[in-house]
């Protein structure tokens, strides 16, 4: 593993504010973290700013959004001052993103093959034929049988699990250094979820990529990721190695853990989280 | 000081979401809607224009400077002046006053058509959408037949069949306006028909009428209101078109389309006879369009 010292991504004091009629609190406030060639999970309740953080890294938020950071470096390069053009070169090429629901995140009127190849053509200036080859290759890598046939299908003709694999192949075809996956499996069934995660896991480690895995499923993050960031109210309240999640010290994290019904360790009553406004300030 | 204090209190009462009575809940809804609406200057402009026009129509006897029917052949075709603000027509009548009284005709047609079409479209659309099956097929076939004609052509054919006159024009226009409304209501009904809250009510024992009128109608209402407002503009244009072709209001009652048509004969010497009523039609129709767009922005966020 080369270059563990300088992380792939380094974020300091990231703050994101959406324009609004009322003067509102920022959606993400002073967030600090690093991502290396590892799997980092972000968990937190709905609205805690997980997706916003992920999108801010790729500068995919609406134009009027205000993003500030003391540092927002990707492979040593400051992201925020980059020109749009340069940013587009990075997106999809060295930093990619997988979205939640393949039903909505794939273009319904383009064939699957066309959509995957598009990325390759765009960033690697491949010919159509070469892009096609790469697409087939990629589809095989995500364990799709009959890739030839699947390439010609439209998104509504494939199942959710397959759609998510297509999404993965579309984003990984250029072998990016960092992938941001925003709840990539929460629209999927349990059985399919396992497969998709396995594929993602396999590709990430095979290509030595970094993965930022956004989810609200504690069990999943705990078992899938190396490290976990816990967000609350736009802040990262705690950061832990995944294996030590049980030993979390922050009351919010603890609350989440205790609120979770568990199959193996049944509780008569679930603990209810008592929110403390001070957590968001800290 | 106490005034502002009081109004401050009212504002708080209106904005406070912790309601203590249904009246406050409704007042709050209305006030918030108004706040959003008034943030849109164009829509506000449309509303103000429509209100002014309605006032002018209502107070026509006071707003007009002349009797709209008073002829004076010696003073025919005079250009706009201090005495006749918009000039006089071929019979020496005051164009400004005819315009003011004509607002009544225009609004009368637009409102009457809307009042006829709203409930009809509602009942037919909601019945087709909610009851479904056989009723849906029959009702939608009928709607299709009417929709197969461009609306002016159909209105033209009907008002020719019924004979000229405002009431007949109203009927003819109404016949062309209801199908899209019914379609809209049907489409909306279909989206709500399977909604969980409707199913919940069904499972608790609500009857068809109850579901239609207490559950579905209030939800279709905003888009129907928007549609009807925007329709006002097209009704006014259709009515003017009929008037223009001589099928709308009959003389001497002032109707803008007919005024513009009649004025066309004197176009070269008296442009104001055509230009001014036409401009009036444009402005009213514009105002209703702006108003409708504004309402859509606030009532129907999915179409923003």
């Amino acid at each position, binding site marked *: 593993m080369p270059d563990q010292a300088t992380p792939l991504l380094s974020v300091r004091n990231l703050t994101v504010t959406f324009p609004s009629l009322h003067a509102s609190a920022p959606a993400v406030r002073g967030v600090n973290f690093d991502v290396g060639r590892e799997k980092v999970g972000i968990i937190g*309740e*709905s609205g805690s700013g997980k997706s916003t953080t992920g999108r801010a890294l790729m500068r995919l938020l609406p134009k009027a959004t205000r993003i500030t950071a003391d540092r927002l470096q990707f492979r040593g390069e400051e992201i925020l001052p980059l020109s749009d053009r340069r940013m587009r070169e990075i997106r999809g090429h060295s930093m990619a993103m997988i979205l939640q629901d393949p039903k909505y995140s794939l273009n319904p009127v383009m064939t699957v093959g066309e959509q995957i190849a598009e990325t390759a053509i765009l960033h690697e200036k491949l010919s159509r034929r070469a892009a096609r080859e790469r697409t087939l290759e990629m589809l095989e890598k995500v*364990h799709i049988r009959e890739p030839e046939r699947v390439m010609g299908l439209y998104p509504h003709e494939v199942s*959710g699990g397959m759609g998510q694999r297509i999404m993965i192949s579309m984003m990984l075809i250029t072998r990016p250094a960092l992938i941001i996956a925003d709840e990539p499996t929460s629209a999927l*069934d*349990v*059985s399919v*979820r*396992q*497969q998709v995660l*396995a*594929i993602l*896991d*396999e590709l990430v480690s095979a290509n030595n990529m970094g993965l930022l895995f956004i989810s*609200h499923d*504690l*069990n*999943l993050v*705990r*078992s*899938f990721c190396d490290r976990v960031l816990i967000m609350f109210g736009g802040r990262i309240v705690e950061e832990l190695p995944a294996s030590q999640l049980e030993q979390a010290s922050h009351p919010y994290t603890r*609350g*989440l853990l205790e*609120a*979770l*019904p*568990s*199959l*193996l360790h*049944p*509780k008569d*009553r*679930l*603990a*209810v*989280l008592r929110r403390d406004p001070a957590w968001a300030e800290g | 000081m106490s005034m502002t204090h009081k109004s401050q209190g009212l504002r708080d009462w209106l904005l406070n*979401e*912790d*309601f*203590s*009575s*249904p009246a*406050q*809940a409704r007042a709050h*809804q209305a006030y918030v809607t108004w706040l959003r609406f008034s943030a849109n200057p164009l829509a506000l402009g449309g509303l103000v224009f429509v209100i002014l026009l309605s006032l002018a129509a209502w107070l026509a006897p006071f707003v007009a400077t002349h009797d709209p029917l008073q002829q004076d052949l010696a003073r025919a075709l005079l250009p706009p002046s201090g005495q006749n603000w918009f000039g006089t027509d071929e019979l020496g009548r005051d164009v400004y006053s005819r315009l003011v009284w004509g607002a009544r005709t225009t609004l009368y047609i637009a409102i009457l058509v809307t009042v006829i079409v709203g409930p009809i479209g509602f009942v037919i659309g909601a019945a087709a959408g909610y009851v479904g099956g056989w009723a849906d097929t029959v009702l939608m076939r009928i709607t299709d037949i009417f929709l197969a004609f461009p609306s002016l052509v159909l209105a033209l054919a009907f008002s020719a069949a019924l004979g000229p006159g405002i009431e007949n024009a109203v009927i003819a226009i109404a016949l062309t306006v209801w199908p899209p409304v019914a379609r809209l209501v049907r489409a909306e009904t279909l989206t709500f028909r399977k*909604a*969980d*809250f409707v*199913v*919940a*009510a*069904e*499972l*608790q*024992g*609500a009857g068809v009428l*109850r579901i239609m009128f*207490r559950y579905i109608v*209030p*939800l279709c209402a905003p888009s129907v209101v928007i549609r009807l407002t925007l329709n006002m503009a097209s009704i006014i244009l259709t009515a003017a078109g009929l008037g223009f072709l001589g099928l709308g209001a009959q003389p001497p009652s002032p109707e803008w389309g007919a005024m513009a048509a009649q004025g066309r004969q004197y176009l070269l010497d008296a442009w104001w006879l055509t230009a001014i009523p036409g401009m009036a039609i444009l402005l009213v129709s514009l105002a209703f369009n702006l108003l409708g767009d504004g309402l859509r922005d606030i009532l129907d966020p999915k179409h923003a």
Partner: protein
Amino acid sequence: MIAIENLTISFGRGSKTSHVVRGIDMAVNKGECFGLVGESGCGKSTLLGAIAGRVKNWQGAISIAGEQVRPEKRSHAQLRRQQMVFQDPFGSLHPRHTIGRILLEPLVMHGIGDRDARVEKALEQVSLPTRFRFRYPHQLSGGQRQRVAIARALILEPEILLLDEPTSALDVSIQAEILNLLKDLRERAGLTYVLVSHDMAVVAHLCDRIAVMKDGQLVEISTRQAMIDNEVQHPYTRMLREGSLGYRPQGAAITA
């Protein structure tokens, strides 16, 4: 309390007929909480719909509280006996009715008097402040809405509550509150539950007996303890169980 025999539900006609539920037999005892798990599209909601009276095109026999029900039409008394809570708290409340109105409606439909008191009591039951009566659903959080939906079901004093994934749209912390509430209510009012969920842990938390459904059929009816102890029979049940425990990094599943 609920007895189902050879229930088959199909949609469509002619060549397009699809049998969504096929020959299900099951029985739910009084006061029991019966869980139903299975993958998306396996027919859980449809089965629940048939019990509730929402789905009408079924064959077989359903009896509720010892009374045989017919597919097409149910009497008010039959409808009142079981109530349903839906998955999506945003779609199950009428957006233009106040909370008070939402709770009042069932009372009006059934001609029940003493309405104000009942509404207040229902709100109290689900631990919502009574002043919420005048609010609209959009002014409530997801968890609060789900409470209102439960209150709406409870206001008719049913014997059975049919819960279709009542917490899957909610955050973990809110889910805990709702699950606690459901548990309390059952104990207090002696209700019978049928709970549908994706999440094995949720089902196991509430239910005594758990039925596993696949492609419209019951593959296994098991108990909570069996689930915990991994004493389930069917491989499909086992897979569901493991899925709910988190990610297992073995390459095995990939080639499936």
